[in-house]
C-alpha cells in the first residue's frame, strides 16, 4: 500500500448524517439540564481563609518551638525521662488536633 493510496483512502472517509431526532433529543437534554438546580459552587473564600489560618498557625507554632525549645523540653522532661520520645509525640498530637479542627471551624455554617 503506497503512501498516496493511504492518503486517498483516509481523505475520502464518509460523512455521517445524524439520525432525524438527534437535534431534538439534544435540545431536550439541554433544557432538562438548564432546568436542573445548579450545583453549589466550591466555597473558595472559606477554603482560602482556612488555608491562610492553617499556614499562620503552622508558622507561629514553628517559631514558638524554635524560640522556647529549651523550656518546652524542660516542661516535658518528667515524661521525657521515662520515655524520651513521648513528650514530642504528645506535642505533635496536640498540634495535629488543632490543625484538624481549624478547617471544620471555618466550614461550619
Amino acid at each position, binding site marked *: 500500500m503506497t503512501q498516496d493510496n*493511504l492518503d486517498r483512502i483516509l481523505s475520502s*472517509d*464518509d460523512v455521517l*448524517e445524524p439520525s432525524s431526532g438527534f437535534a431534538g433529543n439534544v435540545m431536550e437534554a439541554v433544557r432538562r439540564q438548564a432546568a436542573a438546580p445548579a450545583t453549589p459552587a466550591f466555597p473558595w473564600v472559606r477554603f482560602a481563609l482556612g488555608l491562610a489560618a492553617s499556614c499562620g498557625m503552622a508558622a507561629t507554632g514553628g517559631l514558638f518551638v524554635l524560640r522556647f525549645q529549651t523550656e518546652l523540653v524542660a516542661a516535658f522532661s518528667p515524661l521525657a525521662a521515662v520515655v524520651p520520645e513521648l513528650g514530642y509525640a504528645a506535642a505533635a498530637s496536640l498540634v495535629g488536633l488543632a490543625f484538624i479542627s481549624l478547617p471544620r471551624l471555618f466550614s461550619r455554617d
Partner: protein
Amino acid sequence: MREDDQDAADVARVIAGDLNAFEGIVLRWQCRLVTMAWRFCRDRAAAEDMAQEVLLKTFRSLATFRGESAFSTWITAIALNTCRSRLRAEGQPLLSLDPARVFRNESSSFREIDERERAEAVRRAVLTLPERYREAILLYYFEEKDLAESARVLGVPEGTLKARLHRGRELLRARCANLDPLAPDVVAVTEER
C-alpha cells in the same frame, strides 16, 4: 453571516439566557460532531451518543468560553477529549479488523476484495494504532489536512504533529500491508488455494 460569526452570536445569546439559541449551534455542528465521533469508533449509535455528550458539555461550558480561540477549535477540542475519555473508559470497539485474518477466511481471493472493503479495513486499522498516532491521523484528515488547526485542537506544536503523522502512517502501512493485492503474503495465500 459567516459560520464563525453565527456561532459567536448564538453563544452570546445563550449566555444572555436565550436557551433556544443553542439550537443553532446544535444544527450547525451535529453533522461534524457525529462524523468525528464515528471516525473514532466506527459505530453509529456510539457516535451519536458521544456527539450528544459533546454538545451537552459545550452547553455547560459556554460561560467559560472567552473567545481566545475560534469556537470551532474549542468545540472540536471538547469533542476530541470526549472521544478520548470514552475510548479509554470503554476500550476500543471490537473491530472485525485485522484485515489479514478477516480476508483469509473469505472464500473469495484477495484480488476480489473491492476497493470499498479495502478502504474500510484501512480506516479501521487506524483505530488500532497507539493513541497519539491515532488521534493525529484522525484529526488531521477530519480537518481536511489543515495542519495548523489540527495542532491547535490537539494542543501540540505543528512539528510534533508532523512527526506523529509520519510515524502513524508508517505503522498503518505496515498493518495494512496484507491489503495490497500484490503483497507477497497475499500472493502466497492466494496460491495455496
